[in-house]
């Protein structure tokens, strides 16, 4: 999957699952500081990523995610090796 497709799908998930404003979402945005997503929200997002991209994200890797771009990187790495 192309990076741009991953970013677009991730953005859709953030809007649909976490109720974020599409305009606020950038790859640099930090979940907790910029987007006001609490730590449980990040866990829920990672669950949604697993479901929607059909990947497994181990807890140790999930814990390192702080920005939208990092979430996209992780999905990209899981999908494309």
């Amino acid at each position: 999957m192309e990076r741009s497709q991953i970013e677009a799908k991730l953005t859709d998930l953030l809007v649909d699952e976490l109720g974020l404003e599409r305009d606020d979402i950038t790859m640099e945005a930090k979940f907790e500081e910029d987007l006001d997503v609490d730590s449980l929200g990040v866990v829920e997002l990672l669950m949604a990523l697993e479901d929607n991209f059909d990947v497994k994200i181990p807890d140790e890797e999930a814990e390192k995610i702080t920005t939208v771009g990092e979430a996209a990187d992780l999905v990209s790495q899981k999908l494309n090796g």
Partner: protein
Amino acid sequence: MSDVTSRVALVTGSSRGIGRSIAELLASHGHRVAINFVSNEAAATEVVSAIEAAGGTAVAVKGDVGDEAAVAAVMAEVQEKLGPIEILVNNAGITRDDLLMRMKPDAWDVVMQTNLRSVFLCSKGVMRGMLRGRWGRIISLSSVAGVYGNPGQANYAAAKAGVIGFTMSLAKEIGSRGITVNAVAPGFIATDMTAALGDDVTNAAAEKITLGRLGLPEEVASAVGYLASEDASYITGQTIVVDGGLAL
């Protein structure tokens, strides 16, 4: 009872005693219930038969809920047979009573594993499904021993007090997602566990109880059934003491 939605419930340690009563009550409310047991398959099968005879749905699921791999297997089996778990009742519990001076570390560890580690493992195991469904009920059995203490039960009381702290913390973690987490603390209830104490101990206990008698498993189950229902939607992080007024 305004609760009409049929949900999937897992009751740990429900082949007999209070767990059995809870399983039967939840089934009578229309929920599909997984009867978890460790060794007594005949008893678990009997509970399933009793529920089915009453028109309910139940399956028996074997597994030691203090063990990580066993919990994963139990969760997978319930999911496969009934669907995602929406009501978890952490009931499984054992006693290994002794004066602290004589208590072996093994007696401490095994009680912690079965009575407290199981609560952690099972609650963690149902979390994904409940977060996804934005609805859930986690109800754990504490004990008056965990609220007031009891001589000879330092291990049991510590585990049961641990259940209360766990309940309040998890309630705060996931309350925003429509999941409530509560505990029920029974007093002296007539089960195999209290029968093992002998008549002298139970008679002496009954004298200290405001209602003048031991409780019945069904009387604990009804509190659990209430907390599991829609009617209890605004109650979380609480411990309901069901002890016949023991501490009054």
